[in-house]
């Protein structure tokens, strides 16, 4: 397995800039996710790592080997496509062994490696079935098997779970992550689904409009987003944004909300505007009779493990994750308070966080 390094990569298609100033290091043996909305440049970035696109400028390294100009077939990287290109009438065995056959690997060695891959993917019982008889999840595994058997230096996957239904997707993401753990493989996956990224990744790079906005562990992105885009893109239900009066000097340890001082993580940068953007996730808003803000319940959505309340407050609408067994009724008057340490403060003009972005993955 290898480390992948992208150094100042630019990619333009005529007058459209798909990727700009991309610096990225995918550590050896890590599960790395490129996350972002459609058109953000994540797939183009992946295709450049694969060698399917040439960067307009910049360099790509696999460990110490510069591969910027080498062909896809010379990079020893396996690409697993969204629409798995399998040979439907060939057996599972035939499909998995195919890359070795084209490389001229002897039959005995082929059989040994097919058996090893089938064990890793739990496909032992299906080796002699034709692929067209398999369902989505099993097909996905065969496609993976064909990638794994080559022992490449890294795996690239473009929305590998995108076509599966919800239940199977949940199952396959566990399986794919488990496989990565067993193989200690360097894997780079592209997805627009933040839950998938959170659940699977060691490290996530959030992209928008051709740029990387933040690289971090899932929990760091979730609890310490670098800007309002990352804060909004990661997390479901979405984070709440409120506005409170500014300015706010650097090293502030409290903010004032409707007259009450709420302790927060200290600011590192001043906000020189007449307002400050506050982000707070629904699980860090609590119902409290003598809360910081007064509110009225608009809707109470039952979610099985909790209720998701929408509350109209003096500072706007808030979503609240409420774990009480009793469901609050629409129209009910309640108070809300905030977990100050999890309040996120942003500059309203730039959208940048004005607090330290510490790594919280160990917490």
């Amino acid at each position, binding site marked *: 397995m290898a480390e992948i390094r992208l150094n100042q990569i630019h990619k333009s298609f005529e007058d459209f800039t798909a990727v700009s100033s991309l610096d990225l290091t995918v550590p050896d043996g890590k599960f790395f996710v490129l996350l972002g*909305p459609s058109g953000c440049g994540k797939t183009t970035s992946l295709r450049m790592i694969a060698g399917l696109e040439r960067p307009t400028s910049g360099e790509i390294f696999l460990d110490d080997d510069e591969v910027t100009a080498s062909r896809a077939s010379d990079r020893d990287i396996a690409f697993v496509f969204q629409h798995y290109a399998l040979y439907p009438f060939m057996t599972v065995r035939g499909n998995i062994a195919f890359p070795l056959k084209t490389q001229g690997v002897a039959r005995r060695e082929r059989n040994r490696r097919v058996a090893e891959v089938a064990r890793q993917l739990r496909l032992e019982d299906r080796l002699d079935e034709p692929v067209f008889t398999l369902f989505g999840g099993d097909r996905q595994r065969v496609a993976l098997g064909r990638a794994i058997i080559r022992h490449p230096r890294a795996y690239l996957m473009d929305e590998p779970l995108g076509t599966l239904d919800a239940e199977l997707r949940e199952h396959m*993401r566990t399986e794919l992550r*488990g496989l990565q753990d067993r193989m200690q493989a360097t894997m780079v996956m592209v997805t627009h689904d933040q*839950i998938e990224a959170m659940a699977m990744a060691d490290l996530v790079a959030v992209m928008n409009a051709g740029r990387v906005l933040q690289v971090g562990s899932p*929990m760091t992105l979730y609890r310490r987003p670098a800007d309002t885009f990352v804060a*909004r893109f990661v997390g*479901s239900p979405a984070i709440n944004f409120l506005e409170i009066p500014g300015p706010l000097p650097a090293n502030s340890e409290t903010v004032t909300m409707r007259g009450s001082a709420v302790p927060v993580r200290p600011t590192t940068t001043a906000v020189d505007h007449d307002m400050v953007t506050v982000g707070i996730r629904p*699980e860090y808003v609590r119902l409290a009779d003598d809360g910081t803000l007064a509110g009225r319940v608009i809707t109470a959505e039952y979610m*099985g493990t909790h209720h998701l309340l929408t509350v109209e407050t003096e500072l706007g609408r808030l979503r609240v*994750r409420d774990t009480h067994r009793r469901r609050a009724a629409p129209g009910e008057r309640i108070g809300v308070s905030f977990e100050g340490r999890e309040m996120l403060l942003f500059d309203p003009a730039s959208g940048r966080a004005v607090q330290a972005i510490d790594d919280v993955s160990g917490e």
Partner: protein
Amino acid sequence: MATVRISDVSRTFGDTTAVRDLDLDIADGEFFVLLGPTGAGKTTSLRLVAGLETPDEGALFIGDADVTHASPADRDVTFVFQQYSLYPNYTVFENLAFPLRAPGRRLSDAEIRRRAAWVGERLGITDKFDNRATELSGGEMQRVALGRAIMRQPAVHLMDEPLSSLDAKLREALRSELKALQTEIGSTILYVTHDQSEALALADRVGVLGDGELLQVGSPEEIYRHPDSVVVARQLGSPAVNILPCDVLNVTGTGASDVGLRPEDITLGDPRTSGDGLVATVRQVERLGAENTVILTLGGRELRAMTAPELSLDKGTEVSVQFLPEDLLYFDRDGRRLTA
């Protein structure tokens, strides 16, 4: 607004029974969601109520009127589809107003403007009134489609996966807005979806469909906490319910073949100091933000537990698995729920 009564309705296409003996009463002002996988008969049920299909057997009533053979136009229902169905060359306002200018209704311009202002404000589309439909994003188009239906004030709203072509963030936002609107105006809505979280969040009552048959009807809490069968239990909840043979959880003497246990009803602890003998191994931890899903191996089986985000567990750690007996769901060999 009106009640809907679906009385022993069946509909067959060739050899396939799409809907079998569907019997359902929907109350005036109720938000009723039909939930099921693809092919369960959800859309056919909705089309039967709309009059886009005619039942082979049974009868349909909207309010007191027997509409079994009435044409769609005579049923006073609106239909919102998954795919946006706006008039592309009309402005948003014209799209909203169009149905109210139809010969049968012919509302005054003042009344049309009043209603448009009202839904426009609630759905956040007032500033788009002069835009053409083609200039809208997907989320805005679906807001207009919902607004247009609501302005008509029909006896019943029929909605076929209206949120499913939107991205996750928009879907969630519009879901809450739709629920708030329905709470405010008390419309009768029959809504179909394959998305369990949408069903739980929106519905006053949910009907779970499988293979053309209604498997269970109840409030979201009832069907989530008290499913009648393994099939219904599995339809609800994310992460999915654990269904395990009794012996894996040391459950004996109940006559059950399998037990169901929801991930959030499991408590993990230190096996040296807590629990009574059930020890599982941590295989993976998915940190989802507000909660973690811990994937465990217990007796050779996979078990999913939901924990607080603060609980950090390394792969390979042994943990005790604890739960309250009253949270267990007991099922017989055929997947039917056994009740004490």
